[in-house]
């Protein structure tokens, strides 16, 4: 009887250890999943094809809604890659990158396609998990004082030369007569 109890106890312990180790491994792999750069993905597209990868980048341009899905493009400073995901999965985007606008930085985990069969051979990613890891912001425009001076100088020069040209034209016409 005692050996049965010990065996059961050992089995339980073993199962607990297996669950803990697996859980820890999953936790570690999710928390410390290295995001891959766009250049690495594009250069080694065949190697990553069909694999689940983590990619981070700034959302740029537009959020293009296509039915229940959405296309976004994430720029990691080197290239932008198109991400296809369910509309419902997209977190609330506050800023989309553009002129004087730094877009929200998103991290996605999804399947990478070197030439996606669903999307006409595009190199893209189909996102599973997506989260905002850094909020975007507006970068205020600043007027360069030196440029303002040059703009004034050239504007005045143009007016001056235009006046000279008109006078010259009048003299030219008068001489011809």
């Amino acid at each position, binding site marked *: 009887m005692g050996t049965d109890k010990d065996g059961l106890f050992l089995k339980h312990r073993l199962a607990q250890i297996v669950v803990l180790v697996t859980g820890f491994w999953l936790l570690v792999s999710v928390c410390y999943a290295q995001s891959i750069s766009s250049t690495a993905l594009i250069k080694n597209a065949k190697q990553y094809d069909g694999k689940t990868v983590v990619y981070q980048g700034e959302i740029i341009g537009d959020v293009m809604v296509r039915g229940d899905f959405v296309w976004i493009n994430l720029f990691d400073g080197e290239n932008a890659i198109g991400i296809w995901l369910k509309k419902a999965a997209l977190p609330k985007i506050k800023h989309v990158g553009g002129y004087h606008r730094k877009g929200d930085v998103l991290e996605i985990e999804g399947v990478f396609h070197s030439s996606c069969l669903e999307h006409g051979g595009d190199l893209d990613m189909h996102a599973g998990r997506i989260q905002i890891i850094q909020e975007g912001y507006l970068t205020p425009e600043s007027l360069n004082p030196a440029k303002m001076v040059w703009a004034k100088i*050239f*504007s005045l020069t143009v007016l001056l*030369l235009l006046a000279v040209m008109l006078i010259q034209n009048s003299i030219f016409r008068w001489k011809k007569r």
Partner: protein
Amino acid sequence: MLLKPSNDDICVISYHIGKIIVAVSLCLVLPILTAFVFNEHAPILDFVISLGFSLSLGFLLIILFKTDKELHWMHGMVIVSLSWLILAVLAAIPLYLSGHWHSFLDAVFDAMSGYATTGLTLAQDLDHLSMSHQMWRHLTMFIGGQGVIIVALSFLAAGTGGAFKIYVGEARDEKILPNAIQTAKFIWMISISYLILGTLILGLMAIWEGIAPLRAFFHGAWIFMAAFDTGGFAPQSQNILYYHSFLFEIGTILMMILGIINFKLHFSLWTGNRREIWRDIEMISLTSTILISFFFVAVGLAKAGVYPQAVALFRKGFYHLISGHTGTGYMTLYASQFMQNWTPLALVSLIVAMGLGGAMCSTTGGIKALRIGLVFKAFIQDVRKLMYPESAVLIEKFHHIKDLILEDRQVRSAALIFLAYLGLYLFGAIAGMAYGYPFLESLFESTSAAANVGLSCGITTISMPVVLKLTYIFQMWIGRLEFVAVFTLAGFIIAFFRGK
């Protein structure tokens, strides 16, 4: 004996260059208006400085070299070739001031690429560029596609006596209407009508694909400008891939095809003569070369098995073939994917298609369909001659707007330009190889630059050697002007220094 150009020659050339600078610079008003629409303050300064500097230079040339002397053919050629260089430098000023170009040379590279409707770019962080700078980039393509001389002739019609002599210098030796100024105005009328229609169609497509209305119409206008003018610039760094849209790809294919048609043929179509499209030697030549080159591209890609589905093969193979053949350079691939995924057969077929180009008197570059057609006809004629008795007189005819008889001088001229283009493609390829790039990559990029295409396999980056940047600028310039004007300029410079 080489004759040194006289002071009168210098005056005529400088005076007309001044006028062209003024006319083209006035187009900078459009990006300024765009800046107001999008509330972009800093870019306004970039454009005001550029406009001020360009107008000052133009006015100064007009004032200092004022003349009423007549234009000669040599003047026309020198004016055109020099104007293109000067305008590229002037167009680079607002680009450089935006801070998105690493150096002024890079900005000049993009400006020449824009005017020559090439589409190769060295812009940095394009996705954060202002809307007004985007407008200017795309406008350079629209201006260059129609031709800077066409712009000048349209604006300054009253004061340009020998208009046809400068019109021809811009690789446009076909007059549509009896007068060069009327022709220039007709070209603008067609282009602006198509611009309105194209913007509307592409804008609606962009809205359908999820882009906000105002941005959609601006994207529509820019994409149209670069597609119809077979340029290839796009407002986002991913080029056409950004839109992830089959609909948009179909739309741009139609615009690109519209852009490679001879303006003379457009005139025939507009005046109701629709049969011309099936009879013209250029259209037959174009259709044949597109179908043959696509066959080889498709075989090459099918062999590699990269795009196993017909839709993917069409969207990647046919799209890039049309983009290359029309000289547009729109891409739905990343540059390095050409070398990674495409087989040598597919790549070589694409390079050949890029080298051939579209129709004469269109917005495209390359050897041109008429020349291909004429050389092919002459070849057939020579073969037939061998099969007939020696005393037989064979007459070969072709249809180009009207029925014409094939003459030796036409074939000679076509063959010479054909050979000159082949030499230019090879020259750039050798320059690429000299810097350590493999042959196929070097030939790809060189042909793309010289035929004003814009597809890139990855050589065109800010880190490429300065000499290679200069080589591509030279290729874009000489390729767009089809040699004669540039060779005349070279002769003029030699005569200036060594003539008596």
